[in-house]
């Protein structure tokens, strides 16, 4: 209570959490607002155009605000393609991929972090190698694997033919395990104090029990990060589903949007309405889960 009032001020100055300021606050805000405008403008343009009517959307020069609001554009865009189907497909594919990836990653990460076994280093190196292997390396062989064996070709050797072209399976199975998620979770599981494991052993708990009742509950933030990153990857993926699907029955939203691009032609008001509802769920998820996403990206440096 009686501490001299000067002391905190002296301490507070060097600890001020900032690097030296550029000349004026106003200038900084100007820079940030300018960049922010450039960054955000396409989104504004997308939404404002989606509410214009056809002739206004293709007017030169473009209007900044819609002269009248045409929410019916969304209805029309929605009915032009089976969007409900596409969204259901994407949610199913993303959901299944995320769930599968979490299960395989949790188990493998736990083994690497908390168990001792022969060949641990070799297997870890193998995971590291898979992590470095870019998707481009496996694009063509995976495509060949997913297709049906032509007549007279052995469907098991040398290349197994899974005959999954144009199915959900082709869009889910390759994403049920990710070396990246294993690394991320392993790091989390390594940080679990040894005492917790010892206590669990004394209580007679095996690995599975310890994993389920102790490790997972305290690792929920890391699990959410993995789930969100994996959901993003699945939701936004385009090239692979574009290559391995052809029918609308299994088509995801990104491929649907690409198809609609061709169909809509110069009906930009409808195209922008479709783009709006394709990005809306993911931006919503970003705003809700921003903390986890930003942490995940900052910690792992994944660039998508």
């Amino acid at each position, binding site marked *: 209570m009686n501490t001299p009032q000067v002391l905190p001020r002296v301490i507070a100055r060097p600890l001020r959490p900032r*690097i030296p300021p550029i000349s004026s606050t106003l200038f900084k805000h100007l820079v940030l607002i300018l960049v922010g405008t450039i960054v955000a403008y396409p989104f504004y343009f997308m939404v404002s155009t989606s509410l214009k009517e056809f002739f206004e959307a293709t007017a030169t020069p473009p209007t900044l605000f819609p002269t009248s609001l045409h929410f019916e554009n969304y209805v029309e865009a929605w009915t032009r393609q089976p969007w409900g189907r596409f969204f259901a497909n994407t949610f199913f594919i993303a959901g299944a991929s995320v769930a599968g990836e979490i*299960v395989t990653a949790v188990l493998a990460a736990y083994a690497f972090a908390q168990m001792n076994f022969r060949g641990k280093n070799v297997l870890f190196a193998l995971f590291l190698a898979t992590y470095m*292997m870019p998707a481009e390396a496996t*694009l063509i062989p995976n495509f060949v694997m997913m297709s049906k064996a032509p007549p007279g070709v052995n469907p098991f050797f040398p290349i197994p033919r899974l005959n999954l072209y144009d199915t959900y399976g082709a869009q889910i199975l390759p994403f049920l395990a990710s070396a990246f998620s294993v690394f991320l979770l392993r790091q989390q599981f390594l940080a679990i104090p040894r005492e917790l494991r010892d206590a669990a052993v004394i209580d007679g708990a095996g*690995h599975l029990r310890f994993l389920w009742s102790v490790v997972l509950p305290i690792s929920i933030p890391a699990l959410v990060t993995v789930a969100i990153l994996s959901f993003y990857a699945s939701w936004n993926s*385009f090239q692979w589903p574009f290559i391995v699907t052809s029918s609308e029955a299994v088509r995801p939203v990104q491929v649907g949007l690409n198809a609609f691009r061709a169909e809509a032609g110069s009906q930009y008001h409808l195209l*922008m309405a479709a783009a709006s509802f394709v990005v809306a769920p993911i931006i919503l998820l970003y705003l809700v889960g921003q903390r986890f996403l930003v942490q995940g990206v900052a910690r792992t440096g994944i660039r998508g």
Partner: protein
Amino acid sequence: MNERAAARRRRGLIENAQAYLFLVPAIAFLGLFKILPALYAVYISLFRWDIVQGAFRGLDNYFDILWQNSTRSQAWWQSLSTTVTYALITVPFEIAIALVVAYVLFQKLRGRDIYRTIYYVPYVTSTVAAATVFSYVFHPQYGIVNTLLGSIGITGLRWFQEPDGVFQMIGSALGVAVPEWAAGPSLALVGVAIFSIWHFLGFQILIFLGGLGNIPLEYYEAAKLDGANQWQLFRRITLPLLSPQIFFVFTIATIGVLRAFNEIFILTNGGPLDTTRTVTLLIFKTFFQQGQIGLGSAMGVLLTLVILAFTLFQFRILGRRVEYG
């Protein structure tokens, strides 16, 4: 004593078996869809493989791509040069812009979190949707970009349909004849680069902000006591201490450029006149549209080697960054 040793060994065996059980699901899927396919890619590349597997060709696919003076190898080298150009006009700007924005954003400012939230949005938006919007923003007639440029007297840019080099265009606007070798990247490729910079800005800012947070503030205080000015602080403290992040962004952005497909497919589909046909686009067209799976696979292997070289380089310099993840 013996009994205890036996018990310990039994426990060890059980632990081993359990660990393998835990690893089986991940290894099964990674093996089937990552490890084996990587080997298959090499296998396929050794055959004439047009839709169905044909004759064994040894390394002839590679010779066709790299050395034979054919349209095939011309396409390959042209695509590689397009990819390098694309990297040169994207990566330095990505780093520079993100560095400046991160530096400003790191300081204590009102509304800092709002700026950050906005800056990250393009990064989380799907490439297909974002590129669809971009092709409209840059539309020669209806787009806002040409409207703005028109107000300062620049008119009629065709952006994603423009195969002419930008230096050539500037030259002809000024009445200077620019030789063909100095024509520069096509305006379409510049448009693609602008999209990439916009799309990944948030990611690079995020990485730089993390790096800035790691620089001890005492360094700045000490330098200020010695009378250093703003520029010196940035140049002598911030830049050197941020070099791991700059290097990381440099390699990952380069790899990102090498792997870029979706944005180019949507914005230009490799055109106009193949001026934006990067290696990924060439591979896609070779194997998917022309059905030349063997040749495409050989190109894929070559691209993979380049990407792996960058990845290993990055790991070596940064000391296995995955350890952090």
